[in-house]
């Protein structure tokens, strides 16, 4: 029965992804005249000629300029929200360090939440601040994703495209229509969408209850579709107002992976060799399923410390262990970070799977656009390793992979250990940072490790007991989110720029094919060796130590 549920779920997801990829290609190649006409008007009014190709440096500068403008506007909104309209619950300004953290978090598509939405954000900040970045930070990632695909697959000197055009098209014709449909579905399921403030209720036994609500459905739709993940309410998609029914849960869970899955097929389609897209999809899918299996096993088996039955601490009754496990794996594989159960209370090895998914750089479907370009870095390393083994110059999609590309790919990867191991080491030793830890024993260390893995991977989920609002961490995490986002975007655009200037060679008998099972296996091994082994020692101190203690019957 469980198996049928999973098979049906992933079949539907794959079918939706295949369909969306066709639409995405039409959008990014401006094939629909009516839509292209609207794009042109919008872009002309911003002083942009959408047909003008950008060099990789211009593309990167445009991303940075756009994200900087978004950061400034969002920071200002959060600091001034107390004086601005649409604030029925009279919420005051955010502190400077928290506003910095929050603004970076949403601009980098991380949506790390060091605040609680219903208590610290006005409706204006939620709508004109966070919702906007939910759209455009996602669109920025998608634009970079498409630019990188063009660099890898396009004709020689075909260019990377135009950032402003790609970002605008992604927002207007992909994210917005999908969000409208999902928001209305969620509203039908019971997610509130109102500008009325909190309501006071007098319970059946006379107890008073203040029920926070707000324009939630619109924001939740884009938070899932854009792999953002920042909830309207503090407990995110576990809140019965964010995720009231099993149907709303399935719709949101599918939305988390939808665009990242479609990106695999878009890649194959633009490469004019669908097998290339399927190969990447297969590698990602196999790793995702392995993770789902591990988390499902441990959560259904439950915690013998608490009694017989599934591990229901920090889970909602309507979702149970299965839908919570599926969500936990999906949200950490895609760099979404929304939660429908509390990751801090998952079993130790379930937590470890989630950490590994983030530490390898969010490449198992990953963020919209960013998951694919992250995986393409691994593809470069994989063909490089294969080339070393057989003694041939490595090629990917007919283009020679040389020292420059490999060096840039390694620079991209270095951001992960730098943010997680180096900054994380300070965060787990400095006395001023240690106050954030809630749980004693190895689990306390897992909380720090999870936080820095999530921030550097631009995921945004957390072991929620950890005190993320400590100023030391709001600042440090703000910085590693910037590192995790841009130290990946810039090298990957540079690689795309460099590849797009190379001649495409025809495949010969000696070419290593990058589609069959051999390549998929090699790609998975590369991810595991390069990504996961870097973090094995530190995982041994956290989740592995905790699991060993648990099996031995020890508590802390």
């Amino acid at each position, binding site marked *: 029965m469980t198996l049928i549920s999973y098979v049906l*779920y992933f079949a539907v997801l794959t079918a939706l992804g295949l369909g969306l990829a066709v639409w995405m290609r039409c959008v990014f190649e401006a094939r629909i005249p009516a839509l292209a006409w609207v794009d042109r008007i919008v872009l002309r009014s911003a002083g*942009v000629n959408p047909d003008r190709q950008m060099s990789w440096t211009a593309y990167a*500068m*445009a991303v940075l*300029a756009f994200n900087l*403008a978004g950061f400034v506007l969002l920071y200002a909104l959060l600091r001034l929200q107390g004086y601005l309209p649409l604030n029925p619950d009279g919420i005051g300004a955010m502190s400077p360090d928290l506003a910095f953290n929050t603004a970076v978090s949403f601009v980098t598509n991380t949506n790390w939440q060091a605040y609680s939405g*219903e208590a610290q954000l006005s409706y204006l900040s939620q*709508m004109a601040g966070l*919702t906007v970045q939910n*759209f455009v930070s996602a669109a920025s990632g998608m634009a970079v994703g498409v630019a990188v695909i063009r660099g890898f697959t396009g004709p020689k000197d075909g260019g990377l495209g135009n950032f*402003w055009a790609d970002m605008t098209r992604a*927002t207007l014709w992909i994210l*917005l229509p999908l969000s409208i449909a999902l*928001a*209305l579905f969620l*509203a*039908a399921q*019971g997610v*509130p969408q*109102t500008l009325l403030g909190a309501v006071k*209720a*007098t*319970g*059946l036994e006379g*107890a008073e*209850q203040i*029920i926070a609500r707000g*324009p939630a*459905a*619109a*924001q939740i739709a884009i938070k899932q579709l854009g792999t953002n993940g920042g909830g309207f309410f*503090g407990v995110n998609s*576990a*809140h019965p107002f964010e995720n*009231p029914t*099993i*149907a709303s849960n399935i719709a949101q869970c599918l939305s988390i992976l939808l665009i990242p899955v479609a990106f695999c097929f878009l890649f194959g389609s633009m490469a004019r060799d669908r097998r290339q897209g399927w190969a990447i999809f297969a590698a990602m899918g196999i790793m995702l399923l392995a993770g789902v299996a591990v988390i499902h096993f441990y959560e259904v088996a439950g915690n013998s*410390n*608490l*009694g017989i*039955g*599934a*591990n*229901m*601490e*920090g*889970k*909602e*009754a309507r979702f149970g262990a299965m*839908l919570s496990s599926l969500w936990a794996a999906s949200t950490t594989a895609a760099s979404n970070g929304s939660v429908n159960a509390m990751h*801090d*209370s998952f079993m130790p090895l379930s937590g470890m799977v989630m950490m590994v998914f983030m530490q390898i750089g969010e490449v198992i479907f990953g963020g919209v656009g960013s998951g694919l370009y992250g995986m393409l870095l691994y593809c470069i390393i994989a063909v490089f390793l294969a080339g070393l083994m057989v003694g041939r110059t490595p090629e990917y999609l007919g283009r020679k992979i040389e020292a420059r590309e490999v060096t840039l790919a390694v620079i991209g990867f270095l951001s992960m250990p730098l943010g997680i191991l180096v900054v994380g080491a300070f965060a787990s030793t400095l006395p001023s940072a240690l106050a954030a830890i809630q749980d004693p024993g*190895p*689990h306390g260390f897992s909380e720090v490790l999870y936080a820095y893995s999530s921030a550097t991977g631009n995921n945004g989920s957390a072991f*929620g007991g950890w005190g993320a609002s400590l100023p030391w961490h709001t600042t440090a995490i703000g910085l590693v989110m910037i590192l995790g986002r841009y130290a990946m975007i810039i090298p990957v655009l540079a690689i795309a720029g460099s590849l797009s200037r190379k001649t495409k060679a025809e495949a010969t008998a000696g070419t290593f094919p990058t589609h069959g099972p051999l390549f998929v296996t090699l790609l998975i091994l590369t991810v595991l060796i390069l990504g996961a082994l870097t973090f094995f020692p530190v995982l041994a101190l956290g989740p592995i130590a*905790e699991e060993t*203690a*648990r099996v031995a019957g020890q*508590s*802390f």
Partner: protein
Amino acid sequence: MLTHLRPAITLTLGFTLLTGLAYPFAITGAAHVLFPAEAIGSLIEKDGVVIGSALIAQSFVGAGYLHPRPSASNYGATPSGASNLGPTNAALIASVAERRAAYTAENSAEAPIDAVTTSASGLDPDVSPENALAQAARIATARGVDRGAVLALITKQTKSPLLGLYGEPTVNVLQTNLALDAEFPMPLVGG
């Protein structure tokens, strides 16, 4: 960088108007027209007073009512919250044992796992059918009715998994308690 300044600022402001104001306002309008009750939070009124939301747990301690799952935020809906305690945390293990003892004493029944663990939101509106059925005897005694009648009512209130494949069967606590009050009013004295 300077050449990028104009599009950066224009498009940031333009998308703020479109996705930050027009989009949420349009969804708000549509939701209020299409799903008026859901849009404002699925509130339940009784005699003109809001008694709660069908989606949000509230505290019940009386013997005649179905009790919700434990809440780390004490059923406070502003802000919501979970325990976030790790699986090997001694404090968690101790409070679960305490709740189990209290549940068994109150209901003379073994506590199902969802009755002793705190939910993710602190506002979980549902309990498992096992949990609800285990409370039936206590509810029946307090209301002076037959246990079978309470069991039948709980079974009627039980929602099944989606398509029989996804999610868990659940019983909504507030709606069940309203149904209990309607079908088996509390005796005026005792209970």
